[in-house]
């Protein structure tokens, strides 16, 4: 997690003209989080990569004007959320994302085949379950559990009241538990 001091350092570096190095730090620190948010929101690797790239382009263009009214990470996550929502509205055909689970299952290189399969199966299970959640619940749970953001930060990223976010998370957890239970039963 980036501190306010790091935020300021990066902003100062960017504004002093060393934009490439500042941007590189943003990619190093937040790239993984940004990509995971996109991946679990869109449930498609190619779209998630494009969305992450689009989000970073917007970040690059907007960083000079960033006022610091929110944490830099909150601002960045909000951007990737908006890009993903745009993608879902405009580009996403129905049923997209099924190959994502298959690829996760197939990726067993370099590990004990049994353990790797079981681990990947669990991950695929989770991805499928998350993918079945409604869009806003999916984003809330991704930010809360994947990025380990607090309720307030999730609310800030999603631009929603705290109570609404708590309600989304509660419903998402219940739905996930239910979905995972069903998946496990069908696997057994």
């Amino acid at each position, binding site marked *: 997690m980036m501190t306010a001091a790091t935020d300021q350092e990066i902003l100062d570096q960017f504004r002093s003209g060393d*934009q*490439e190095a500042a*941007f*590189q730090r943003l*990619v190093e620190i937040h*790239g*993984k989080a940004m*990509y*995971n948010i996109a*991946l679990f929101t869109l449930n498609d*690797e*190619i779209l998630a*990569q494009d969305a*992450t*790239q689009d989000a*970073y*382009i917007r970040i*690059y*263009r907007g960083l000079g004007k960033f006022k610091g009214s929110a944490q830099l990470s909150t601002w960045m996550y909000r951007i990737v959320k908006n890009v993903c929502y745009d993608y879902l509205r405009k580009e996403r055909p129905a049923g997209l994302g099924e190959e994502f689970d298959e690829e996760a299952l197939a990726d067993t290189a370099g590990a004990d085949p049994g353990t790797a399969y079981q*681990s990947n199966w*669990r*991950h695929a299970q*989770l*991805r499928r379950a998350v993918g079945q959640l409604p869009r806003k619940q999916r984003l809330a749970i991704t930010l809360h*559990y*994947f990025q*380990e953001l607090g309720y307030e930060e999730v609310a800030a990223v999603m631009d929603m009241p705290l109570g609404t976010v708590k309600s989304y998370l509660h419903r998402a*957890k219940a739905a*996930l*538990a239910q979905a*995972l*239970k069903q*998946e*496990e039963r069908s696997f057994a």
Partner: protein
Amino acid sequence: MKEQQPDELQQFFREAQVDLPPGLKARLLAIPALEQRPAFGDLRWLLPLAALMPGFLWVVVHYASDLYGYVTQLTRGLSLPELPRITVLRDFTLPDLSRFPVVSELSLPALPAITPVMVLMFTAAVALVAGLAAGLYLWRESQLDVQYIRLLNRVR
């Protein structure tokens, strides 16, 4: 699976995180270089073209009347209607610069009278050069886009 406690769910989520694909990272790190391109591209390559412009215009003006004659003969030979006569600027000539003492001391060569054909040829020449410059600019931009697309494709 039992009803999961938040910690278990969190662990589950942590394990499911994926790393940033190296190809995507390369794409992201390329953004500053691509975004720092000047809004209108690097226009220095237009300088040689600009240097050629006066010479080109001189040739156009110098041979304008000859060219007009050739075109007129051609249209007559082909039995096409004659070129329309432009009368607005027909009688326009440059002011007599020798009346101004400073200019007369410079003993400038006599300038040709401006004829409608010259105006037309000048306009055509400017349009040609501008079109050429625009074409070259668009071609160069498309080359940059091709480079960017290649970069994107390489990592897919």
